[in-house]
């Protein structure tokens, strides 16, 4: 490529970009806000999805045995369930082990030393092969003579999953609206530049510049605005991840935050891509409308 040509082109882009700095900053700021929210939204959805999945797969039936039932009864039930095709696994948890597990889980949060006796009954933990079978399995268990109580969170979990799907769709809608807003602001900024340069554009058209050539600096301007905004957003998100996530993990000990599962580099590139694409599309339309006259 001819260096003189490249220099001329770059100087045109730089002039455009510096022509209305305030508007340009507004456009960049809007993109930043949009991309930050998009990033936060995608991260939350990913994490919530994982949590939901985990919880769903964890749906297990807790079978508490009557005090009168002994280890033999428990083993008999376990053996019977082992033949049931709907059952994935059965674990016998004697009351002492149950208490130990509970101690582990709540370590540091509740002072377990206050407990002087073990309040837990012997229990079985049953997992169904399919979450849809949980109801049937639970009903069968309830009918057994040595079973005191059968508990599972099927309903609650399914409601939660459904709710998070609805919330996800609402979030997606908000992000979509924000992206449209950012596009409109970028497009208005470009239109200002187009307006400021209408004389030059008219002369370009008069002397025979192709519409692609006339468009290019404006497309570049939009691309730059989108990219700058997205880069700023990615930087903010990176800081937030470093600063907030550990605190969040501390505050919500029961919630498994799968930070490591999100590939940060790919994620950042995706967000940059979204920003740049919004800028390009927005400027394409705003210049296109002008050139058609």
């Amino acid at each position: 490529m001819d260096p003189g040509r490249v220099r001329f082109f770059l100087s045109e882009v730089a002039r455009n970009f510096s022509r209305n700095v305030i508007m340009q900053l507004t456009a960049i700021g809007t993109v930043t806000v949009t991309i930050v929210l998009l990033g936060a939204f995608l991260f939350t959805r990913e994490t919530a999805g994982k949590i939901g999945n985990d919880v769903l797969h964890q749906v297990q039936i807790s079978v508490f045995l009557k005090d009168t039932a002994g280890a033999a009864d428990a083993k008999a039930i376990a053996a019977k369930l082992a033949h049931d095709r709907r059952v994935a696994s059965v674990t016998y948890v004697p009351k002492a082990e149950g208490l130990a597990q509970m101690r582990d889980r709540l370590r540091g949060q509740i002072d377990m030393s206050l407990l002087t006796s073990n309040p837990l009954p012997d229990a079985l933990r049953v997992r169904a092969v399919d979450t849809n079978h949980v109801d049937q399995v639970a009903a069968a268990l309830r009918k057994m003579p040595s079973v005191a109580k059968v508990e599972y969170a099927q309903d609650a979990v399914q409601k939660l999953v459904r709710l998070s799907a609805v919330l996800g769709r609402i979030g997606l809608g908000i992000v979509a609206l924000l992206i449209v807003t950012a596009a409109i602001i970028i497009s208005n900024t470009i239109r200002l530049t187009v307006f400021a340069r209408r004389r030059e554009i008219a002369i370009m058209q008069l002397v025979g510049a192709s519409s692609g050539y006339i468009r290019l600096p404006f497309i570049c301007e939009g691309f730059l605005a989108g990219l700058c905004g997205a880069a700023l957003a990615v930087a903010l998100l990176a800081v937030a991840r470093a600063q907030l996530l550990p605190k969040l993990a501390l505050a919500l000990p029961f919630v498994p935050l799968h930070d490591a599962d999100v590939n940060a580099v790919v994620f950042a590139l995706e967000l940059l891509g979204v920003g740049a694409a919004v800028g390009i599309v927005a400027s394409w339309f705003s210049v296109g409308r002008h050139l058609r006259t």
Partner: protein
Amino acid sequence: MISLRGVTLVYPNGTRALDGIDLEIAKGSFVFLVGHSGTGKSSLLRLLYREQRPSRGSVTVDGIRVDKLRRSKVPYLRRNVGVVFQDYKLLVDKTVWENVAFALQVTGARSRDVIRGVPRVLDLVGLAHKSRMFPNELSGGEQQRTAIARALVNNPKILLCDEPTGNLDPANTNDIMDLLHRINLKGTTVLIATHNVLVVDRMRRRVIRLDDGRITADEERGYYHAAGGAAADTAELPIMRYSVGPRTSSLLSE
């Protein structure tokens, strides 16, 4: 070189600017287009560089059916047709050199060709020594010469001038006309829309007269006022012309 057949132009607001124009202009000719204000001179020129499309009829420029030209091909037509206006249309933040170079740069010329082409046309219009000046540091005549240099730098076969001397005093007017004459002698077809009686009568070239969008006279070696036509209409006396402020064309205004 230029051929119009049955051309009618009706603007979207209903104004009939041109009405059944038939016109042939040979390669290398030097032609004046005259007529009262609002008779369609600028409109006719606009058809030739595809700023307008005719409502009816055909427009052929250098063998190309301009009225049927695809939008994406229009830039190539424009590189072959230089256009000059009364108000020069220079970029005030660029020097003479940059204004002329602009026409090459935005059509994707290599910088080698820019460095060769710009001095060539600046020499032709006699502005080589002022190439670093800005338009507001130049006289009207010099600004128009810059505009002509810009129109010529892509080596067009045709040069269209819409009242090129409209804002100039007689001395500058004569300079510009001499320049356009020299350009014509080099083979470029030149078509000038003008109100300037003195210029037309001094040059004695082909004169096409428009009245209300129709051609009412077309004479080789003609005068501004067609033979046997009405006497000078005071509104068109040159002395009046200079008192009129700059006319702005519809293409650009500021």
